[in-house]
C-alpha cells in the first residue's frame, strides 16, 4: 500500500475577485523510501496541494478529494487528529527558516517540543536526542548551538536545524517546500547533500517541492510536473530529464540556463505568461503557450501512460 495516496484533489480560494482554482484533480502516490519532486512555477499549485493535504490552507480556501495516509483520509480528519499526525508521522520543512523558527525561543526549547508532546519523552531525553540529530545534520558543536537563538545562526545552519527538527519525530513522510530557495548556492550544496544522505539513512518518504530543476535532478527518484494546478507529466527522474514528453516539460528544460551548454547559445524561452488562475482556459491549460498546439487542444487532454509508469497529459503521441 502506498504511504500517501492523493486522489482527485481540488483546491480553490474565494477571493473578492472571484474563485481561484489553485489545484485541479491532482492524483499522485508515494511509497515509503521514495523521493518525489513536485516541480512547477508560480501558479502551478504545488505548494497549495501540500498545504491542503496537511490541513494548512488559508481561511478562504476549500478542498475536495482524498489524501490517504496509510489508508486514512487526511482531508476528513479533525484538526486534533491531524495534529497527531503532523509533527510525528508527517513533518514539513518550510522555505524560509527565518519565519519558521520562533525567534523568542532557544533552539533546545523548540526542538524538544515535538518529542515531549508527541512521543512523551522527558525533557532530558528529548534534549539528548535533539543534540544527536544536530550532529547527524553536520552542525558543528551541537551541544553549544542548541542553547542559541535562531537569529544567532547563519541561514544555512538554520535550514539544517529545520531539517533536524523535521527528522526528530522520526517521520514516515517528510515534506520540504523549497528548502534551499533562500540559501546561497554554496550553502545550498550542503543542504542538498544532507537530504540526499537522508535517503540512505532513513526510510522516510520525501516530497520535495521545488522550481529548481538542478536540485531536483540531484535528489529525487520521481518527478511530478505541474502547470496551472494540474499534473502534466509524471515519471522517474531519468525519464523526465532525458525523455520529456509534455511540451511544457520540454520547454522548461530548454529554458533553464546550464553551465554545460555552449556559451552563446540563446535560451529557448516559453513565450507568453503564466496562467491567470481566476480565468483558466478551457481544455489544455498550456495551449496558449504551446508551440505544438493544434485544434484538439481546446478539449481536455487525456493522461497518457507510457511503459515504466511515465504519464503525461497531452494529445500528441510521442512529442519528443
Amino acid at each position, binding site marked *: 500500500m502506498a504511504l500517501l495516496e492523493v486522489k482527485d484533489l481540488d483546491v480553490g480560494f474565494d477571493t473578492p475577485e472571484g474563485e481561484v482554482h489553485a489545484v485541479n484533480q491532482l492524483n499522485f502516490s508515494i511509497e515509503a523510501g521514495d523521493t518525489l519532486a513536485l516541480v512547477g*512555477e*508560480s501558479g502551478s499549485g504545488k505548494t497549495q496541494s501540500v498545504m491542503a493535504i496537511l490541513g494548512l490552507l488559508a481561511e478562504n480556501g476549500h478542498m475536495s478529494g482524498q489524501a490517504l495516509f496509510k489508508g486514512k483520509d487526511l482531508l476528513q480528519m479533525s484538526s486534533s487528529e491531524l495534529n497527531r499526525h503532523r509533527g510525528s508521522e508527517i513533518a514539513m520543512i518550510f522555505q524560509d527558516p527565518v519565519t519558521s523558527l520562533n525567534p523568542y525561543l532557544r533552539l533546545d526549547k523548540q526542538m524538544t517540543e515535538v518529542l515531549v508532546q508527541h512521543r512523551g519523552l522527558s525533557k532530558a531525553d528529548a534534549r539528548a536526542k535533539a543534540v544527536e540529530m544536530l550532529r547527524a545534520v553536520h552542525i558543528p558543536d551541537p551541544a553549544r548551538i542548541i542553547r542559541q537563538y535562531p537569529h544567532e545562526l*547563519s*541561514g*544555512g*545552519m538554520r535550514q539544517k536545524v529545520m531539517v533536524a527538527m523535521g527528522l526528530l519525530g522520526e517521520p514516515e513522510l517528510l515534506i520540504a517546500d523549497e528548502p534551499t530557495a533562500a540559501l*546561497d*548556492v*554554496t*550553502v*545550498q*550544496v550542503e543542504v*542538498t*547533500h544532507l537530504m540526499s544522505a537522508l535517503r540512505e539513512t532513513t526510510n522516510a518518504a520525501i516530497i520535495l517541492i521545488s*522550481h*529548481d*530543476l*538542478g*536540485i*531536483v*535532478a*540531484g535528489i529525487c527518484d520521481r518527478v511530478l510536473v505541474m502547470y496551472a494546478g494540474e499534473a502534466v507529466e509524471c515519471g522517474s*527522474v*531519468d525519464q523526465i*530529464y*532525458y525523455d520529456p514528453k509534455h511540451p511544457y516539460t520540454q*520547454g*522548461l*528544460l530548454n*529554458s*533553464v*540556463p*546550464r*553551465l*554545460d551548454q555552449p*556559451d*552563446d*547559445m*540563446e*535560451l*529557448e*524561452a*516559453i*513565450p507568453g*505568461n*503564466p496562467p491567470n488562475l481566476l480565468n483558466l482556459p478551457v481544455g489544455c491549460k498550456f495551449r496558449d503557450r504551446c508551440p505544438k498546439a493544434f485544434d484538439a487542444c481546446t478539449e481536455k487532454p487525456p493522461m497518457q501512460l507510457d511503459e515504466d509508469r511515465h504519464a503525461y497529459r497531452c494529445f500528441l503521441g510521442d512529442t519528443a
Partner: protein
Amino acid sequence: MNDRVMRVQDLSVHFKLREGGLLSAKTHTIKAVDGVSFDLDAGETLGIVGESGCGKSTLARALLALIKPNRGRVVWLGEDLNKLDEEDLRKKRQDMQIVFQDPLAALNPRMTVRDIIAEPLWTFYPKMARVQVDERVRGVMKMVGLLPNQINRYPHEFSAGQCQRIGIARALVLNPKLVICDEPVSALDVSIQAQIVNLLKDLQGKLNLSLVFIAHDLSVVKHISDRVMVMYLGRAMELSSRDRLYRQPLHPYTSALIKAVPVPDPKLARAASDTGLTGDMPSPLNPPAGCVFHSRCPYLIERCQVEVPALRRMECGDWVACHRAEELDFTIGKSG
C-alpha cells in the same frame, strides 16, 4: 571592443553601525564594497556574481552615484561622478539607468504604465508635447514586447515578467548608454527568466548598450556576459572573460561556485562533488583578516591570513586576487 565608457577605481563603500547602549557604544564598520576596480566598454556586458553579503547591490548603487563612496572614483565618460554638482549629476542620469530585482515593487502602484514610463521624459524634457511623449512611450513598450494598448493599466494588472518589461522600458525611454541590472530575473519564474534574458541581449545588440548584469546565478550570467567579476564580502576575487571563467577559473572561490551550481541533469548531478569549502560565510561585521576568503579556502597558506591579495593581471590577460593563482589549476573537468 569600442571605447571605454566607465572606469571604476578602488571603489569603497563603508557603512557605520553603532552597537550597544548609551554607555558602551561600539562602532562597527561594514565594508560593503572594498577596493573594487574595473573598466567597462561601450556595448559590453559585465556580469557581477556573488552570494549574499558580497556587496553587489551596494556596488550597483555606487556606480550610479546613488550612494556616495568613502574612497575611490567612478568615472563616467571621462568625468568623476562624485565631483559633479547636483545639477550636473542629475543631467548625467539620462545616460545611466537601473532595472531592479523585484518587478512589482519597482513600480508605483498608483501610476499607470504610461505615467511610469513617461516620468523620465517629464523630468528631462518637461516641454515635450503630450502627443510626443505618448508616441515615445508606446514605441518603447513595443520594443520590450508589451502591447501598447495596455498603456492605461496599472502595475497590479500585469504578471511579474510583464512588470519587469515595464521596468526595462522605463530604463530605456531616455536612450541611455548604460543600464545596470540588479538581479533582474531572480524573482521571476524560470520560463520567464529566459524571456527577459533574451530581451536584454536583443536590446543590447540593437541599441549598443553597455550592461552591468548583477546576479547570484552563475548560469544566467554566463549567457549574457562578455566578462564576469566575482565578488566576495565586498572584494573582487576574479575578473575574467566569460569564456575563460567557466572553463578555467583562476580563483578557488570561483571554482567552488561553479561546482556548487546544480546542473539539471540527473547523471551529472548524482556525480557532483563537494565544493571543498569549509565553514560558513563570515559576517560582514567581522570579515577575516588578510584575504577575506581565507576562512573557507581549501588552499589556504599562512600568507593568506595576513596579506590582502591585490587584484592583479595574469599572463592570460584576466585578473585575480589570490596569492597562489599561478600554481593552482581549476580547469573544469580536471579533478581537484
